[in-house]
């Protein structure tokens, strides 16, 4: 894992036969069909070149998946099961008759939607250079959003110089540390029907805003998430995160998470983190009324992360629906060095445990605590055995960071004060009400 930087190649197959020439470095190949991302594959130098027939073999299962997932029309998606995998519902009759490429062509058209009902919130902390690139990609959107809110979470206000004087940008300085606090400050400053969040280490696909609005309009969902592709795979740590650990989201077909997804998973623990990533998420403002914003005990700067997935949990528990729509694409700059990646994984695990505790306190589903006690230790053991078998030292070191994060996360179980502290703003609906409404 010490080779030269990898190349990321985006290839659109809608234009006809394509080929990939021989490379002498690794290649992350992303196939598209017009506006539709089909799938991605990592290729070693020896696995290139790719001719017509290799691309056909690579693309056909992805094309079939798209035709199936998008056969029910715009805005409708297969339902997610408890593990974040779609419920299988392709009938043999449909498999035999579905016009595959016709469906693909229908789904591959660009969004014609404007984004004048969408506000974009970027929370940033001490990374003005990256924020600059992020804001440039926002300015280059095919459908410009009505408002861009930059929440500067740096006490030294390092983003002010980059963001404050940009046209169309609302600059908010929120010196109290914590990503949840910053995101809530952004929510308060955003005035639009839809609000989208992204991070300062992200660059946006030009169609991003238009695709988000289209996804809301066609699906009626309360939250939309999208695909996070790597912006670069220059270092071994970046490649490990994207290619071996799965990155943020790597599914290319849409998926609907509805209250049934929570119901199915009370025992096993709902895998709400599969809904998406905080770097690419949006909400219908009206659906947030009464939910009280992001839990300020969670997220970077507090427990570590999972403030996004805990929020989706509340949306689902209140009877809402979240749509994962991979046509809305962002590009994320992964951590460049191993230390950064290990810190990230430690924070992920600590935040994950904290969110599980918070969810268990709020809704009392047994699966969440069982995940802390049982599923995670089993996952650690399995990962360790696998890494020993494949002699992957980097995975063991990363696992150590995860175990440390998990151990640190256990504190929240034993801190009654933390568990009683209201993590969300007052005025949010009491838990009992939500449960009652859902079962009524």
């Amino acid at each position, binding site marked *: 894992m010490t080779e030269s930087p990898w190349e990321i190649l985006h290839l659109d197959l809608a234009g006809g036969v394509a080929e990939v020439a021989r490379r002498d470095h*690794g290649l992350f190949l992303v196939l598209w069909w017009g506006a539709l991302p089909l799938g991605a594959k990592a290729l070693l130098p020896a696995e290139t070149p790719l001719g017509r027939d290799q691309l056909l073999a690579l693309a056909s299962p992805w094309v079939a998946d798209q035709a199936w997932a998008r056969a029910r029309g715009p805005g409708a998606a297969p339902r997610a099961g408890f593990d974040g995998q779609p419920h299988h519902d392709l009938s043999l009759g449909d*498999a035999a008759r579905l016009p595959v490429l016709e469906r693909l062509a229908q789904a591959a058209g660009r969004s014609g939607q404007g984004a004048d009902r969408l506000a974009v919130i970027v929370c940033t902390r001490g990374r003005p250079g990256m924020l600059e690139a992020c804001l440039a990609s926002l300015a280059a959107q095919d459908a410009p959003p009505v408002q861009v809110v930059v929440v500067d979470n740096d006490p030294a206000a390092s983003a002010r110089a980059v963001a404050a004087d940009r046209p169309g940008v609302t600059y908010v300085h929120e010196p109290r540390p914590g990503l949840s606090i910053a995101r809530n400050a952004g929510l308060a400053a955003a005035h639009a029907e839809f609000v989208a969040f992204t991070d300062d280490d992200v660059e946006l696909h030009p169609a991003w805003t238009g695709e988000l609005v289209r996804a809301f309009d066609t699906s009626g969902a309360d939250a939309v998430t999208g695909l996070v592709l790597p912006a670069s795979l220059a270092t071994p740590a970046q490649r490990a995160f994207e290619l071996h650990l799965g990155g943020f989201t790597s599914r290319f077909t849409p998926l609907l998470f509805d209250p049934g997804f929570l119901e199915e998973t009370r025992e096993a623990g709902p895998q709400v983190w599969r809904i998406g990533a905080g770097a690419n998420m949006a909400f219908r403002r009206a659906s947030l009324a009464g939910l009280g914003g992001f839990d300020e005990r969670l997220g970077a700067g507090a427990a570590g992360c999972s403030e996004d997935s805990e929020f989706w949990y509340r949306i689902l528990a209140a009877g809402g629906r979240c749509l994962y729509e991979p046509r809305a694409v962002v590009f994320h700059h992964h951590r460049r060095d191993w230390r950064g990646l290990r810190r990230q994984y430690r924070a992920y695990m600590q935040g994950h445990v904290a969110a599980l505790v918070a969810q268990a306190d709020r809704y009392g589903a047994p699966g969440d605590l069982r995940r802390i006690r049982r599923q995670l230790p089993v996952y650690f053991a399995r990962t360790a055995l696998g890494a020993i078998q494949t002699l992957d030292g980097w995975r063991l070191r990363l696992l150590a960071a995860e175990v440390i994060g998990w151990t640190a996360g256990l504190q929240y179980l034993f801190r009654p004060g933390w568990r009683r502290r209201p993590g969300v703003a007052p005025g949010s609906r009491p838990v009992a009400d939500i449960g009652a409404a859902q079962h009524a």
Partner: protein
Amino acid sequence: MGYRLVELDLAKPPAAIGLEPGQSGVGLLARWRGRPAGFAMIPRPDGRGMSAAEVSALAEARFAHAVLTLRAAAELDALWGEPGPVAPTSLTIAVCTKDRAARLARLLASLAALDRSGFCSVEVLVVDNAPSDDATRRAVAGVAGVRYVLEPRAGLDFARNAALRAATGDYLAYLDDDVVVDGGYLRALAAAIAARPDAGGFTGLVLPFRLDTEAQVRFESRGGFGRGFRPTEFRQDRFGNRLHPVGAGILGAGCNMCFDRRLLLELGGFDEALDTGAPLPGGGDLDIFYRVLRSGRPMVYEPGYAVFHEHRETLEQLRRQYWTWGLGFMAYLAKCRRTDPELAGRQRAIVWWWGLDRLAAVARAALRGRRTELGFAWAELAGGLQGMFGEYDRSRARSRVIREGVA
């Protein structure tokens, strides 16, 4: 104890599947437009058959996506237009056999029924390997268009090399005598060769010929020779598999493989110290897959290029087969270590990986109290241990004696 083997045409409404007394499950081979699209082993321990609705639900859950994928490939193929015309090639099919005239006749009959239009010529060679009588010669004499070659030196790879010397085709396909070819065997091989003239070799799907005994059912349920229903290409490296190409078993099986004949000649043919029959019956296919990939030529797995293999009949035979897998794999690795030091790291890592994997299989079977499984897992591990300690050198010495003894 056995399973009923049923073919299912996915384009037609499924019918109920009845079981005969003694049958305890169904092996279901699904086809789409004649092409194998999926295979499922369905235990029915109570001996009841499957209603049409049950078959339909199962087919939907297991095979619907495969059908859609095949159709997506066909639509893309049509959209992108035919690739340029390819000069048709000639093929030699070599069947290496030893004292199994009845099975050989069965295979030759299945070959005679094929449509040969994908190749400009197809010749069939039967290599009679150190026969104890003339039954094979007589079985071949009755079949038109089959050439008989005698290889007196005992050992499968002596026989394969004899076929290589006698063959005239551009491509040389090998079949074991315990298989029967599928109706699409030649058509799919011709299409694969036309699509990938740069490939050095091809492997294909191996399905069960029958599932009448406990051993056959167990073997197939443990994965059999199955390598799946998606075309796959292999080159010198494979992302996500750092042990590739040393773990050459994922490419396919020696009972159904085909090579560019000139490449095989350049590589010097098969290693006669592997696949020597009783003392070391295995490893030759892994060795040739590895050497083809290391020559820089890709290999292609094509599921339509399919055969049906008669699995071992008794549990004792099956246990011995797992033993030979361990033995052959480690003997092959010993050879790799000696001849290809460039990949020494991967060769060492796979010994570690394989040892832990098989140890885990032994532990699992022991913890669950599954005696038969334990026997299989242990046999493979024991074979591997024996192979690790000098079996390749012993086999080389033996094969030298055989070579000189007859020459």
